[in-house]
């Protein structure tokens, strides 16, 4: 055994060999997609379209940051789409019906998301429900609550400054919502990689019993992660409301699945312990670019759904095969 193990790390001379290996699947896929659409559509390769894609993926991207944390600890959060809708409605109701200043209503919206996530976390750690069941329950409850608030009606008409967060490109470049997504992604990536608190999440997902015996408070960490996922769903709701100029109780329907898909395409393992924010961002862009490109080519949304399914299967297959070879 000892003779074998000493030969395992080959001296390749490439410093970034491991990085290339790790990222090759999703990143190469994204580049191939971009090349393909550049060749097939005259509109795809332009700064304007690039910024469009950024606008289009912001909500998904913010949700996917939280989902990455959840999946890294070996969990799953099916509630993010519904929590997004509930937070959005809370924000709308606070501002329009309760007369709160919009700034405060935004805080209430984000806090609503965090509380919903915390409930999931408590159901998982205290009531010992499997994450799938706990968040499925929260998904149903919050979707119901979102509809109850206004009896299913939407709330239209936010102040101009609010909608401009999503529409006005600061310095002709990024809107505030896109900038928020980018900043959050960077912060999350740094925490996951360079903060003990972030690194502990990988251990929890890799083997919760090992993590617990090593002195990590697994239950507390789990609750915090689900609360963060909920809070990010609340923040995504704010970005979405700004983009829509309204709050809609049906918003975010099925987003949890897109989000999970993005994280998994980005190389995270649903069994936990593996994943990265960079991979997730690539996964988010693969879905975003695919949608955008297919729209430009005039492919019907039904066929788009089929193709996205194929991409998920292909991405994860390559990833699994690659992992086995390593």
């Amino acid at each position, binding site marked *: *055994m*000892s003779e074998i*193990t*000493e030969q*395992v*790390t080959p001296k390749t001379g490439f410093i970034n060999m*491991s990085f290339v290996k790790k990222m090759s699947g999703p990143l190469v896929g994204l580049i191939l997609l971009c090349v393909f659409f550049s060749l097939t559509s005259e509109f795809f390769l332009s700064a304007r379209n690039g910024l469009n894609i950024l606008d289009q993926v912001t909500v998904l991207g913010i949700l996917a940051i939280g989902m990455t944390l959840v999946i890294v600890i070996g969990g799953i959060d099916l509630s993010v789409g519904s929590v997004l809708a509930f937070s959005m409605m809370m924000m709308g109701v606070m501002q329009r019906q309760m007369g709160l200043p919009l700034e405060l209503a935004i805080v209430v919206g984000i806090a609503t998301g965090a509380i919903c996530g915390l409930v999931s976390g408590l159901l998982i750690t205290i009531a010992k429900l499997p994450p799938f069941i706990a968040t499925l329950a929260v998904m149903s409850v919050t979707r119901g609550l979102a509809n109850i608030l206004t009896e299913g009606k939407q709330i239209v008409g936010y102040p101009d400054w609010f909608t401009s967060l999503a529409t006005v490109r600061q310095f002709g470049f990024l809107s505030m919502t896109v900038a928020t997504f980018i900043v959050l992604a960077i912060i999350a990536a740094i925490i996951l*990689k*360079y*903060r*003990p608190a972030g*690194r*502990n999440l*990988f*251990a929890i997902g*890799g*083997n919760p*019993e*090992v*993590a*617990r*015996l*090593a*002195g*990590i*408070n697994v239950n507390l960490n789990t609750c915090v992660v689900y609360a963060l996922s909920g809070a990010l769903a609340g923040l995504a709701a704010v970005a979405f409301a700004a983009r829509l100029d309204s709050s809609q109780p049906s918003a975010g329907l099925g987003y949890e699945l897109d989000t999970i898909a993005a994280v998994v395409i980005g190389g995270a393992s649903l069994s936990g*312990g*593996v994943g990265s924010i960079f991979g997730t961002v690539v996964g988010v862009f693969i879905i975003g670019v695919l949608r955008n490109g297919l729209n430009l080519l005039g492919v019907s949304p039904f066929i788009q759904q089929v193709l996205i399914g194929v991409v998920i299967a292909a991405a994860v297959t390559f990833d699994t095969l690659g992992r086995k070879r390593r």
Partner: protein
Amino acid sequence: MPMQPDHTIENTTSGQTGETILSVRNVSKTYGKITVLKNVSFDIKRGEVVALLGENGAGKSTLSSIIAGLVTPSEGSMQWQGQPYTPATPSDALNAGLGLIHQEMRLLPELSIAENIFVGRLPTRSGRIDNLEMYRRADEQLKRLGLNVSPATKVKYLRVAAQQQVEIAKALTLNARFLILDEPTAALGGEETDKLFEQIERLKNEGVSFIYISHRLEEIARIADRVIVMRDGELVANFDSAKVPVSNLVEAMVGRQLDRIFPHLPAPTHKPLIEVKNLSSAEGDFHDVSFTVSAGEVMGIAGIVGAGRTELVRAIAGADPVKSGSVTVDGQVLTLKSPADAMAAGIALVPEDRKLQGLVLDHTIGNNIALGNYPRITPRSWVTPTEIRNFATTAIKRFGIKGSADQRANELSGGNQQKIVIARAISSGPKIVILDEPTRGIDVGARSAIYDVIAELAKQGMAVIVVSSDLDEVLGLSHKVLVMARGRNQGILSGTEATRHAVMERATA
């Protein structure tokens, strides 16, 4: 493997009625370089109960598994009712009429007794399950065992003893002529044991043969006709009668072995570091255990599997809840709610199962060693991959781990994996180190390296507690030995009192 002095193996040709039903000839089993079964031969006659004894790891389970078709032997042959017998799967063995009743039940709790008995071969009539026939036949077997319970009862409502009888009934419906019972009485009370023995007696008169594995030596004379004893994978004694004094059985089980090389331990200090008083488990796994370990002292904990040793040390390390009693470290009474509490008080645990409790196998050695040790890697709240690698590399050198920080833990051998877990535990700077079965599944060469590490910890003034099922290890490595049986402290032996014989006698009490 240490070389064995010759032991006389008498061939039994006397006494019993009935012809030989199973004969095992020169069966060996090796896994890689490790030999777990060496040249075992014996015969079993029709209608005979043979007790199979041996310490943990003596090879009893491997032997049973070979007979029951779970494991194929590396060498040797078997004959069943005069025909060559080479079962490739458990169902081959069952179809031939040989069944193994495990210590842990393998039943489907949500199904009825009858369905459990006939699972995989439900009687059908014109394509549908014939419930009447199934219940009738199940009832027949339950009556044969003297059980008064409806075959429609769900298994989850049965007590452990009754579940065991369902397993036996299941084997009997397959016309089993031979049953291996692996520690059947481990979970049974006195009355239930009596009932089981009655059933064995009844089946024996019908011509069914048994291999009966048990750690409760006092049962042997009651139920067995003969006794065979295994040690270190070999059959070392074969008693023609079961009316043998228990002390002779113990002697055959422990035997004498060539001295293994254990590091020299300096005398311990008399400064008690950890004091455990009347500790009882919340789950009832151990009761009223007390002991003290001083700085520089190594205490072994011996006992058979299920004696409550692992549960005891897990509770001290904060991993399992306690009901009553106290743990005092350096004069401070601890409140142990989680492993983090114990670690803060200076107690580190190297858990029993390194693959399930000790390591994140998919992660690198560096990350495994760093886990839980970040405050010691850097005083800042940021940690870089380089810092982690350097920290791990120091530990890798200190413990002689053959591997690099960037390698995955699952690429290493068992001994090196164990050292990673020890390295993590020690890196937290503990005062008390608990190692649960530190050399299980590790080959002999790598063991002495672990022993050296343990001795080194004691020399540095830590209090060390070692749980081990390996008697030589417990005795060779410790200043004193706490013996546990059925969740209770059966005595703490030290100096000349601490002999294999004394430990084994208390462990099987």
